[in-house]
């Protein structure tokens, strides 16, 4: 649990950081909260020669809310939880951040590090897919944007190129009155998900107007359940449509067997998390017919 030797650099500006990363090439790694990278270095599973610390870069620390929401990469999970503005427009961010690790880790850990890390256990990537977020990637060569739904390739493999960093995240402001839920099954505080599901939906009368479902730690990348939209939108939330969504979600899951449970158990739990997230999101959504249609949800 002792890291090898490395050089620690603290750039004064984003440009300086980008040129340090360019010059360092594959030997350099950006550092934000260090809550994933430092443990990996202590286990000597990562051994970068140069760490470029992005925490001091003010450009990466803002949250701005307009028609879309922009969150700087260096915003900590603790800050995400504390932001009332963000909670008012997109409460699922707080709900998700609150089930990440523990308070101490959340003081340091950032949203940028969480989404860039590429660990399938991280909770923010599935949420970003659910919210259809776009990652803003910058390098000394310039800026580009990649959708969260296209960003993840395999465990620890993402669309990020050497020398490139995530500077921020942008996603459309969810429509007001939407329902949401992040359901995470874990063994204890500080654990990664046995299975987790993010659901955002909105209702119009008895019908689902929009719906988006994504999954955490149920494959070597986060999973966006594309079929969920087809199944749910335009239909009513019945046991059958929920069951069909669970089946569609379970069909794309490929969790590994580990201390959290067998592949089979984790897959079934993925389905249950989807079910519970849809149910809770529906309960929270502004709709017209909650008394009748949703009666069965309350039993």
């Amino acid at each position, binding site marked *: 649990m002792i890291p090898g030797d490395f050089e620690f650099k603290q750039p004064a500006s984003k440009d300086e950081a980008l040129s340090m990363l360019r010059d360092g090439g594959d030997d350099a790694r950006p550092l934000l909260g260090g809550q994933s990278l430092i443990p990996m270095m202590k286990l000597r599973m990562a051994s970068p020669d140069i760490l470029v610390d992005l925490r001091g870069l003010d450009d990466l620390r803002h949250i701005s809310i307009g028609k879309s929401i922009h969150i700087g990469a260096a915003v900590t999970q603790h800050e995400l939880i504390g932001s009332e503005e963000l909670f008012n427009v997109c409460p699922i961010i707080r709900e998700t951040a609150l089930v990440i690790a523990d308070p101490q880790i959340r003081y340091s850990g950032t949203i940028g590090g969480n989404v860039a890390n590429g660990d399938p256990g991280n909770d923010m990537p599935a949420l970003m897919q659910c919210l259809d977020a776009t990652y803003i990637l910058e390098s000394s060569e310039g800026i580009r944007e990649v959708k969260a739904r296209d960003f993840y390739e395999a465990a620890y493999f993402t669309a990020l190129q050497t020398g490139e960093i995530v500077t921020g995240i942008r996603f459309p402001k969810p429509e007001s009155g939407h329902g949401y839920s992040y359901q995470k099954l874990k063994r204890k505080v500080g654990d990664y998900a046995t299975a987790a599901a993010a659901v955002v939906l909105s209702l119009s009368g008895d019908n689902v107007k929009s719906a988006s479902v994504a999954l955490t730690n149920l494959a070597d990348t986060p999973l966006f359940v594309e079929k969920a939209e087809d199944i749910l939108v335009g239909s009513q939330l019945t046991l059958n449509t929920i069951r069909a969504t669970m089946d569609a979600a379970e069909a794309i899951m490929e969790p590994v067997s580990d201390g959290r449970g067998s592949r089979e158990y984790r897959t079934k739990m993925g389905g*249950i998390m989807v079910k519970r997230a849809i149910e809770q999101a529906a309960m929270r959504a502004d709709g017209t017919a909650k008394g009748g249609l949703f009666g069965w949800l309350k*039993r």
Partner: protein
Amino acid sequence: MADTISEPSQSETSAERSQKLEGIGCKRKRVEDIRFTQGHGNYVDDVKLPGMLFGDFARSPYAHARIKHINKESALKVPGVLAVLTAEDLIPLNLHYMPTLAGDVQAVLAHEKVLFQNQEVAFIVARDRYAAADGVEALEVEYEELEPLLNALKALDDDAPVLRDDLAGKTEGAHGPREHHNHIFTWSAGDEAATQEAFDKADVVIEEYLAHPRVHPCPLETCGSVADMNPITGQLTLWGTFQAPHVVRTVAALITNIPEHKIRVISPDIGGGFGNKVGVYPGYVMSVVASIVLKKPVKWIEDRMENLSTTAFARDYHITAELAATKEGKVIGMRSHVFADHGAFDACADPSKYPAGMYHICTGSYDIPTAFCSVKGVYTNKAPGGVSYRCSFRVTEAVYTIERAMDLLAQKLDMDPAELRQKNLIQPEQFPYTSAFGWEYDSGDYPTAMAKTLEAVDYKKLRQQQAQMVEDFKAGTSREIMGVGLSFFTEVVGAGPSKNCDILGINMFDSCEIRVHPTGAAIARLGVKSQGQGHETTFAQILASETGLPADMITIEEGDTDTAPYGLGTYGSRSTPVAGAAAARAGRKIKHKAQLIASHLLEVHHDDLEWDVDGFAIKGMPDKRRSMKEIAWAAYNNLPKGMEPGLEAVDYYDPPNFTFPYGAYLCVLRIDVDTGVYSVDRFYALDDCGTRINPMIIEGQIHGGLTEAFAVAMGQLIDFDETGNILGASLMDFFLPTAVETPKWETDHTEVPSPHHPIGAKGVGESPHVGGVPAFSNAVNDAFRAFGGVHTHMPHTHSNIWNYARSLGMIDS
């Protein structure tokens, strides 16, 4: 601080004076917490000596492999690395193997073969821990993998791989003949033939396989040591995480040939032990060797993964439990067979004379006339150890056996588990009670404890609620079920009487030495060693009650072998039963001399004096008195003719018997069948630990022990894959509950003092663990009783619970 105590004024009543002493029965705040809560504890890793070097182990990546070649140069060229020590370097010193407490030997550094993953292969000494870690990474070792043996139940198969080449041809082990190359011992107790007869004539019998999986005590502070061999004086000072510092000194003298008076062992503050710090580990030995070789102090500190994967696991018992009973539910026989997985070396930290420790306490709290048990110990490719994790050796296993078995029998008889227990409890008038295995239970009132428990939780109502939930589940209106788990445990603690116990031939007495200073302050030193139990608080309370000196005026010191009297350390709840008894008796010796001094001061015969809280008074004349403070002063300047000056005493106490704390625990939990997630609604724990020295500390001990019981029953597991890779040896996976997961505990007590202990105390630190594990497991199993469940193994993780529910057809898919 002597000037801060005020002389008791004549007008104070004895009750007021008694309160000021803060003696037995007082909820005195823990004095050690002043430093612990302010970050001023002094742990081994806080020891920093000039020129100190740091050692770290290169460890085996394989569970079973031959070492072909070690390229020392690869590590020696790392800047800062000063030495690379391997078994070859230890052979000339005859230190490549060391004796274990269980009569086997254990490799200090692997010689020719490695026998478990993460086994110590080379010790790399460097200027600091960073360079040492770099050296570990750089060291090149060539291995040839061998077939590993991981399943203890297959260890004695004819074609099982041979693990211990060093034992080739050895047919006699430390505990009798060896039948197979992976066999360590077979041990049995009880009357086999009579037990068979009981089973033959029984109306009802049950038999079940109960796994008690491998777990780890996981103290917050890992193990470590600092060795400082002074090349000029030949004096070795060794700081370490030792639950038994004197034993370490003796072992060190025996294996290094350094004379024992030239070895000083110091256990500074210890951050939890739970059995993990009883054994002697390669790291301790290597820090000493490296200090001798390099003539500099050398520190070794484990990291969390090393702790979980190499130093002393617990349990790993594969138990078959059987009960024979009449159809009315009277148990007439008990039988148990065990396969004990001891890992690669038999390094059990077992202080008893029996290789399965006190497993034969497994008739529990019940009047069972005949019983038999046998235990086979075997080698596997796993880390050695086998420690008593918050219990006396193998007592948690034993209590688990009988308490699960009682539930299984109740189920077979279609009887309530509380009722079955009540039918079979040992009755108060049967004490002292000799069990079928020959233990003499000293005291108890079991029916009262049981009745109080059932009443406190409104047991009948719980069963009604449970029945309602079963109905709802079956009707499809709910997906939740409820379990009620009972355990009525009896422990055997306070190792121990010399007829049952020794460590390396040394009897298991313990000791206290007290010196009263002229101003009436005192220092007492004991042979045990607190790891968080609060000895500095409670032993001062015992002495306060015995000597009449206020607890605040008594310093308690432990852990330095140069100053403390010889003792066998702290584990197995032995500190209060053994050292606590020595403290009481040393206090009485002080009081005896004080009486003679008082008779001189008051000019009366000592028989005409009576003890009055904190001094002696002339019988019938309470105003004519001398306080202990006055007597202490006189001990240094005004003594009866011929009496030697000073006020000091020493006591070495070899207990006549063990003590037998007991209790009744009840757990209520609910299970969400669709996920296997449980929630503990209620946990009620009634303990009887005899005389209660400090009720607040008792409560703290119970909370801690219940939390560890919860952890073991519901989540802890040291697991391996089929090639012997250890799985989950970090706190990400190994279940150490936080405040969020930990249930709320309700504590209660009865108080039946031990008749043979000087103050009637029985020990309490381990009861909650021993009694808690079966209470949780019984609750989980009880939840499934109405659905055809019989037994599901620990740990009761979400996924295991879910799998079990599914196997019973409770989940459709």
